[in-house]
């Protein structure tokens, strides 16, 4: 009896009792001279309330595609520049021309997808806003297990308009690599994550902020991830250090961006998707996701190992969110060049380098 009691007590005491650095507790920080209102039980609690109120406006509500069961048409994002750059999760929600971004003051703005890194499952949007509160990614500290954190997101779409996003408390339970083996966790991300002891990764939470109790951004909340072997759910966030370079590259237009609207640049003898032996699903809606319907036997795609139901995500480093975008992208690549296709197969990101078949080239 005393053993489990003792264990629980140690757990209740938190990081200090568990022998972790005392700074995990120190990060609440004393309030700078602010007198606590009567309702708050202590000065530290007042500081936390104030911190949350300061950080909440840096988190935005994002609305887009989805809306049927298990596919909520909303998620969260964080402002990362005063000019209105928004870092969020790369997901089906963004798979629409009409991405709505609602700021903490209730303003509803259209978000433009600047680019994404499907391997990290992040995307950067741009809204036309100036002087917005924002997180400075370069200042995001690295933190260790035992650190007490807050998760801010619009989980379950609870908040609308100017209503502040939800906040949850928790502790970083582990800093580890996500074992993203296919069939275990449904995510392509394999890098470092903070595993959390709180149920932070709910519908709509992806793209939210994980911050210290001082309000410093430390990580971006991930998606809902389920271990299919035992039906447990993992709550994790991706450390900002893992994302920083990609975000910079997206903002610079160097990585996984949409090809800018430029009629020039098309080549005389381009590739075509059929040239690889890939038959896409019928292009019936405006933004039909480029799923592989069929692979022609003996074709380069078949030889490379592309399979039906693969979703083509990238051509080279350019995002191809639709069949139309994929076809257009290939118009810019000479048929003699090798082409790297990145496909999503059951939440796993796979890369294939293809060359059009000789017979196909002959016809050109």
């Amino acid at each position, binding site marked *: 009896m005393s053993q489990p009691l003792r264990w629980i007590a140690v757990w209740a005491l938190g990081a200090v009792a568990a022998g972790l650095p005392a700074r995990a507790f120190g990060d609440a920080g004393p309030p700078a001279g602010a007198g606590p209102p009567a309702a708050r039980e202590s000065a530290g609690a007042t500081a936390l*309330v104030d911190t949350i109120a300061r950080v909440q406006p840096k988190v935005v509500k994002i609305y887009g595609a989805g809306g049927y069961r298990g596919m909520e048409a909303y998620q969260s994002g964080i402002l990362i520049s005063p000019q209105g750059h928004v870092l969020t999760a790369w997901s089906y929600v963004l798979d629409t021309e009409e991405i709505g971004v609602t700021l903490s003051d209730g303003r509803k703005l259209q978000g433009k997808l600047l680019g994404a890194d499907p391997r990290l499952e992040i995307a950067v949007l741009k809204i036309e806003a100036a002087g917005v509160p924002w997180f400075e990614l370069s200042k995001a500290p690295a933190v260790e297990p035992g650190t007490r954190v807050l998760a801010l997101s619009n989980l379950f779409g609870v908040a609308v308009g100017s209503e502040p996003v*939800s906040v949850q408390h928790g502790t970083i339970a582990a800093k580890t690599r996500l074992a993203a083996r296919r069939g275990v966790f449904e995510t392509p991300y394999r890098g470092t994550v903070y595993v959390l002891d709180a149920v932070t990764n709910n519908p709509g939470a992806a793209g939210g902020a994980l911050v210290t109790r001082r309000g410093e951004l430390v990580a971006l909340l991930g998606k809902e991830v389920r271990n299919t072997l035992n039906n447990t759910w993992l709550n994790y966030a991706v450390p900002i250090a893992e994302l920083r370079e990609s975000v910079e590259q997206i903002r610079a237009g160097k990585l996984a961006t949409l090809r800018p609207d430029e009629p020039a640049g098309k080549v005389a003898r381009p590739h075509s998707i059929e040239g690889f032996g890939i038959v896409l699903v019928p292009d019936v809606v405006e933004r039909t996701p480029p799923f592989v319907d069929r692979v022609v036997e003996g074709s380069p795609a078949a030889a490379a190992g592309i399979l039906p139901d693969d979703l083509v995500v990238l051509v080279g480093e350019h995002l191809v969110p639709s069949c139309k975008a994929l076809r257009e992208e290939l118009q810019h690549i000479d048929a003699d060049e090798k082409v790297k296709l990145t496909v999503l197969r059951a939440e796993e990101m796979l890369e294939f380098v293809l060359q059009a078949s000789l017979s196909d080239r002959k016809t050109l």
Partner: protein
Amino acid sequence: MTRTLAIVVVLCWAAGLAAAAGVPPDVPPEVLKAEAERIAVIEKAKDSVLAVFSAAGGGGGSGVVISADGYALSNFHVAMPTGPAMKCGMADGRLYDAVVVGLDPTGDVALVKLFGRDDFPHAELADSDQVRAGDSVFAMGNPFLLATDFQPTATWGIISGVHRYQFPAGTLLEYTDCLQTDASINPGNSGGPLFDARGRLIGINGRASFEKRGRVSVGVGYAVSINQVRNFLGCLHSGRIVDHATLGATVGLDEERRLVVTDVLDTSDAYRRGLRYGDEILAFGGRTVETPNAFKNVLGIFPKGWRVPLSYRRNGKRFDVLVRLAGVHSEDELLAKLSGRGPREPMPIPKPGEKPGDRPGEKPGGPRKPPDRDDDFPDPKPGPLPIPAATAKPAMPEIVHKHFDEKRGYANYYFNRLHRDRVWKAWNARGDFAGQDRTWLLAGTLARGDKFTLSVAGGQVVLGLPRGDVKWSVPEELGSSLEPIGSGGLFAALSLWRRLAVEGLDKFGEVTYLGTAPWAGHPGLLDVLVGRHGGVECRYYFDVATGLLAGLEMSAHEHADPCELHFTEYRESDGRWTPRRIEVRCGDEPVADFRVDLFTLSKPDPS
């Protein structure tokens, strides 16, 4: 295993002492102090927490005692399946008999009364409007019905959001202006308390966002704010099935994101107070409102029939009015919804894919759709309980039987009579007119300086003015003669004032206790009796502290402004307290202002 875990969790607070002896020496003293304080707070708070069961020992939810004489709060969705008689376990290990007192199906609140003590440990009610996101809180109750010894489980967390709006399930169980917390709220927690870090009651847990992970906490629970409960508490004490309110107008955001009226019923009080399509809503119920959710939040915290302040703007001009809130449901509708779930039927588990509907006339303005199926019903499979095995319908315990009266429209009519009689006795103690068929004679000056006399008798009211007397005979149907014109029926209202005082509860006609409500110009909430006579409804507002009648309003028609009498400046003479000022209002207009110098009774009838 589960039971071991339960005991471990429940006794977590107690483990602090054991742990204190064994913690490493470098634990900062402030951490140990904070821990000790938390242990002490939970230790004290647990005493007021209830494990709620049906009389047969089935069902299962939580509750919290709020007064020494055993009144306790729970959820409607916990109390409804248990039926009027229930059993409540407390941390002292005892099981108490309890009876349902009042129900608020829309707000998902139930008031119950426990028997067996007059010194029940009870929770202190805090001001939940002071709660902020980030505040430490803890929930207590009986999640998963683990507390076989009635020791409640404590789950600690923070406030995730305040003033949250959660769509109704059907048209009931709407959570407006609620508190959102990441403290674990699981099946069985329903009806239990959410405490602030000092152990003061800030809300009643009752709902959580559940989705694909099954019916376990995912860190998103909701509590009815205690300030909302406070507004309804008087009405719940009345033994009624209490309804929520509508304004009779819908609102939405215009292109400039202003909150504007998108529709208004021309039969509503809001319309009569001047509210029109396109008006910008500035404040409602004492709060600034800027979004449809904020508007619905305010609407949700008031009972039907209250008058609340509304401020709106048109063409740059601001209007501040008091508006009467109509009911959401007709009585039949409300009862039909209740009968949908028979009191002794087991609580159904929600069907997958079942979507909560919107309240008609209060359409959501935001882009959000109800995202989840998330009402927290009590666990349908309670564990073994230390209650003797009972048949499906056990006999009502004697103590409950003595405190329960069944009547249509009421959760428990016993308590209606209790309070009706209490209010009447308190008033009567301030001046006994009962059974004395004497004419009331009033004399004084009107605000303009004119002298007046007023004689109010059983069959006639006579107003004497310098230009002559106005005589009014009491008709069969009071609404057929609303004179003087524009007063809404001053003479009828005066005669109903006297009628209640003289005829009393038994002979007046139907008199019921409505609960508590505000009255213009009067601080706090007042006890309200409703009398029906001669085809009209008359509401009598009594000061809770003095027992004196602060005012009455007589409504001849549902969609017309009532005649209001405001009684102030009470004086005592001959052992009777009578008002020295009677202001008469109808709609927005003052009708008359009687300064009463003399209030006497005619000589007793010699016969």
